[in-house]
């Protein structure tokens, strides 16, 4: 068991090493075979591991293996250990399985690219880092994976590095997540000072004994960890990097910026739930941030014109739902939404990538149109993903997870009608922009010529993901419908169950309201973008609406705000001090001595006579002293 456990991250690592060292000399086919092969192998091992976990759960509730002692200084011990419990297992499964599909897709998608090997090397490294993140036994190793995925995200956003904008987007992603990471690291330091350990199982055991609920220290720790999660998961106010991150190739957006990396924050919060539970204040903050994010990002998604940016904002918004769920204490609901979201959002990105590729790298949705008949397979898979995103009831996975989140936002102990209303509004918005996207891209008239259709390597993953987007939700049903709770049974081995507030309102009524919200979103979208497009035209004449659109379009002007608050002052100060002001002090000393030199060197005029007169005056002076004294 131990060897197999370490094989899961080791295989992608091996792939990375081979491809980065030898990749340029290998033929493309072999590169793809290695790149996708190692991930597929890892996925198979992960599934096998999951099956054996389900059949015969280990006594401790987790498989763990210590690979080697990493650091051991004074009272600080930290080893390179893997630890897989139910929560990790869910993540490992999604990462390897979705990862493998995306790798297969990439083999077709990237086939014309010069840097084929570099792409697969980076992707493999990403999977390895992400696996380490979720399998880490201690927070330092988690941090390793955490930064590792950040690096790969940077490398892959800036994959087409010859365009400066891409590189800048990559830098931005790294900078902003780095802010969160640093906060998280400080949280670790504080945690270590308090508990003297950074091992996750030990923390889970020690924390409830050591901290009193709601004490300032635990609040600080939880807040700092949350900040790390917010950076990685693109939550307000650290969300601005994700839309720009779409500069990377579409498979990258699917894997990193939709399915896995952006949900690292969710994993972190769920993993450290013991700490969060001890601080109700931070729990509420988490929920509020989630709600705020889902609303802000949803609004921005409504007006975007770039197909990938729409999906990016929708990702931010969906991750906001996960945070909301975690914040109200519905741990398993949050993780479940991650689970379904990974499938349908990866699907959407991959399908969007296929559309973009076929339309000769066209991103603007208003330049697409009428693709329903031209690309039927992509259309149907996209439709499945979109339906899941909009959470059409009962037939899509998205419904099951989002319904849970909505319900617990109201009924859980940490829930609140206000949160529920925002979430409901979010559901409406989601349905609306999804409808808009579908209608504009796939209906209407053809505006750009459709080029080469995606090959089999690309369509196969689409189909598999489409099936999962529909069916993945069936493992967990709302309580009042069917009593199937496979997923929450699994993760509740690790995560605490939801504590519902008293008295619990009638669930069916609120489900109905949610369904109505979804359908009204779809209807409004249909109305505006299909039935009666003149309404939009009239809005374009209204200054207030134009301003609002612009406001949403620029992501609530967060970029501009940060430019004014941080970027420009920083650049200004550094440029001002480019020559190093401290150097001026030393230059001052130097020029003082040069001045003195100028003064005294007058006496050194090279004439013997002057020197002798100097001597003479000296003698006279000394003798005069003799005379006087």
């Amino acid at each position: 068991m131990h060897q197999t456990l370490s094989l899961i991250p080791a295989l992608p690592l091996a792939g990375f090493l081979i491809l980065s060292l030898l990749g340029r000399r290998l033929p493309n086919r072999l590169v793809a075979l290695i790149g996708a092969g190692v991930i597929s192998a890892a996925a198979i091992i992960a599934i096998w591991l999951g099956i054996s976990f389900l059949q015969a759960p280990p006594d401790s509730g987790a498989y763990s293996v210590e690979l080697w002692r990493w650091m051991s200084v004074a009272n600080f011990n930290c080893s390179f250990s893997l630890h897989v419990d139910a929560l990790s297992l869910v993540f490992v499964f999604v990462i390897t399985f979705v990862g493998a599909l995306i790798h297969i897709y990439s083999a077709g998608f990237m086939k014309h690219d010069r840097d084929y090997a570099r792409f697969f090397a980076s992707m493999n490294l990403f999977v390895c880092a992400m696996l380490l993140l979720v399998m880490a036994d201690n927070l330092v190793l988690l941090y390793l994976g955490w930064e590792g995925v950040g690096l790969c995200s940077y490398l892959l956003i800036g994959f087409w590095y010859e365009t400066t904008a891409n590189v800048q987007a990559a830098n931005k992603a790294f900078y902003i997540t780095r802010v969160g990471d640093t906060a998280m690291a400080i949280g670790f330091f504080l945690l270590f000072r308090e508990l003297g350990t950074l091992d996750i199982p030990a923390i889970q055991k020690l924390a409830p004994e050591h901290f009193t609920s709601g004490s300032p220290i635990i609040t600080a720790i939880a807040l700092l960890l949350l900040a790390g999660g917010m950076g990685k998961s693109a939550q307000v106010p650290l969300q601005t990097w994700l839309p720009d991150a779409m500069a990377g190739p579409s498979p990258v957006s699917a894997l990193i910026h939709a399915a896995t990396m952006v949900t690292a924050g969710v994993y972190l919060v769920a993993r450290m739930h013991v700490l969060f539970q001890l601080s109700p204040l931070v729990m509420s903050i988490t929920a509020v941030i989630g709600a705020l994010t889902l609303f802000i990002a949803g609004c921005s998604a409504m007006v975007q014109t770039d197909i990938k940016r729409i999906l990016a904002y929708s990702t931010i918004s969906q991750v906001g739902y996960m945070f909301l769920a975690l914040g109200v204490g519905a741990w398993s609901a949050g993780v479940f939404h991650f689970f379904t979201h990974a499938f349908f959002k990866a699907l959407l990105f991959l399908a969007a990538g296929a559309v973009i590729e076929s339309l000769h790298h066209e991103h603007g949705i208003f330049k697409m149109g009428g693709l329903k008949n031209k690309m039927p397979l992509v259309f149907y898979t996209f439709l499945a993903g979109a339906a899941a995103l909009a959470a059409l009831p009962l037939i899509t996975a998205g419904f099951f997870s989002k319904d849970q989140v909505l319900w617990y936002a109201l009924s859980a102990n940490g829930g609140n009608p206000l949160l529920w209303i925002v979430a409901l509004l979010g559901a409406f918005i989601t349905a609306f922009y999804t409808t808009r996207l579908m209608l504009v891209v796939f209906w209407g008239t053809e505006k750009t010529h459709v080029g080469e259709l995606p090959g089999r390597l690309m369509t196969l993953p689409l189909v598999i993901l489409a099936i999962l987007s529909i069916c993945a939700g069936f493992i967990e049903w709302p309580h009042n419908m069917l009593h199937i709770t496979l997923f929450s049974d699994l993760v509740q081995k690790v995560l605490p169950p939801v504590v519902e507030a008293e008295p619990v309102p009638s669930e069916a009524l609120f489900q109905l309201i949610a369904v109505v919200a979804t359908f009204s979103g779809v209807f409004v979208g249909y109305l505006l973008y299909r039935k009666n497009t003149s309404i939009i035209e009239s809005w374009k004449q209204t200054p207030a609406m134009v301003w609002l659109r612009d406001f949403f379009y620029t992501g609530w002007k967060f970029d501009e705000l940060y430019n004014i608050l941080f970027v420009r002052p920083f650049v200004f100060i550094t440029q001002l001090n480019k020559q190093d002001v401290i150097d001026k002090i030393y230059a001052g000393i130097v020029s003082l001595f040069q001045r003195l030199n100028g003064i005294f060197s007058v006496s050194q005029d090279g004439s013997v006579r002057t020197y002798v007169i100097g001597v003479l005056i000296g003698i006279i002076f000394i003798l005069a002293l003799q005379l006087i004294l």
Partner: protein
Amino acid sequence: MILIWMIIILLAGGILCWLLSKSNSPAIKWIALLAVLIDLVLLLNIWLQHGQGLTANTGNWMIQYQSAWIPSFGISFHVAMDGLSLILVMLTFFLGTLAVLCSWKEIEKRAGFYYFNLLWTLAGITGVFVALDLFLFYFFWEVMLVPMYLLILIWGDKNRRYAAYKFFIFTQAGGLLMLISILALYFIHGAQSGTYTYDYLSLLGTRIDPSVAKWIMMGFMIAFVIKLPMVPFHNWLPDAHSEAPTAGSLILAGLLLKTGAYGIIRFVLPLFQQYAADIAWWAMLFGVIGVIYGAMMAFAQTDLKRLIAYTSVSHMGFVLTGIFAFREIAMQGVIMQIITHGISTGALFVLAGMIKERLHTRDISQMGGLWSYMPAMGGAAMLFTMASLGLPALGNFIAEFLILLGTFQANPTFTVLASTGLVFSALYSLRLMQKVFLGPPNAPHKVNDISGREFIILAALSISIVLLGLFPQAVLDVAGKVISNKLYVIR
């Protein structure tokens, strides 16, 4: 005795190179390389013999050698090696080998004298790391300084005279203050015990009047923090680093700066323990200022080597902060930082040298998109910029993490401020990558990717930085015995 031999091999090799300089034969390079390699092998042998057996019965010192030098003044030739010295000398020979290798093609003019200076600098550095007699220490301190000055002065870049003078005056000013302090210590100890000696182990027990002790300590401190360098004494560094030849920059960044940190750990803390604790707050403050200031300066630079030089200022700020936290974890982090910074920044300088060899400029605004031409070098550069911004799995992360973790126990405020250095380091590192390797291709002519010799250099550095990141315990164990000593750590 083996320690003496190691120094003598370097000195003799240097003289041999100089003697051969008239003939200008390729043998010069080989002699220089051989001299360093022999030392490296000798040292590896020591590591294998003593590295494991750091047990109590051998004491802290693995090897010790003492013989009279100028007995009438109490000066002895006392050299010894403990875990700390072992690690640093190892770094010296490792980077020394690479320094010789990266001068292979670069130096055509007066090669014999060049290698003489190179080897003598290395000998001086080695001596500094093993000397246990304060006079001897000062002697080696000067031995490493003067050849370095010549290296910059003769083989430097356009503005080399200015840089060389600046380097010399700054370090010499510090060195003379240290000499005064050494003499003061010598006479105070002599007056107390009646035996006049420069021996470190004897001087350890000196009891000094607090008002005097503070000044004596400041003499040492100033010499070491100039070398480190601490803001606001860092100004020699960007000039010297940017003007020096590649090997010079490598040795400056990789080794010379470390002598400052070593000096503080070896001399200031044990000799003036209470007084060092008194200034700890200030030292940490300046360390934190260095971290942030250096990073901000690095962000603004357009000269590639100056940029890297300022990152050194930032990284060495961590060292200063970590030392004065007086925590074992932080101190271990400091030692890791000393090594990993030597490797990662040294590697960046080597890369800068390679780029300069190809493009004949250090101005990053004239670079861009070099990855297209040189993917292998780009990969290496990515690795080392990532190391420099503290990416886990690479050595620098271990160092900075341990420093911050340890320092947090001592002073949370400063730690939080120093942690912002992690963000700033991302800013300058990625800017460096973007301007040099990424972006639209912008090379005046076709440039070749790395050659076999360059591959060896970069591979050695890359492997070591990754190994240090994944298996730091090997280093931590060697230094652990020294560090856990109560002289360095307040529990």
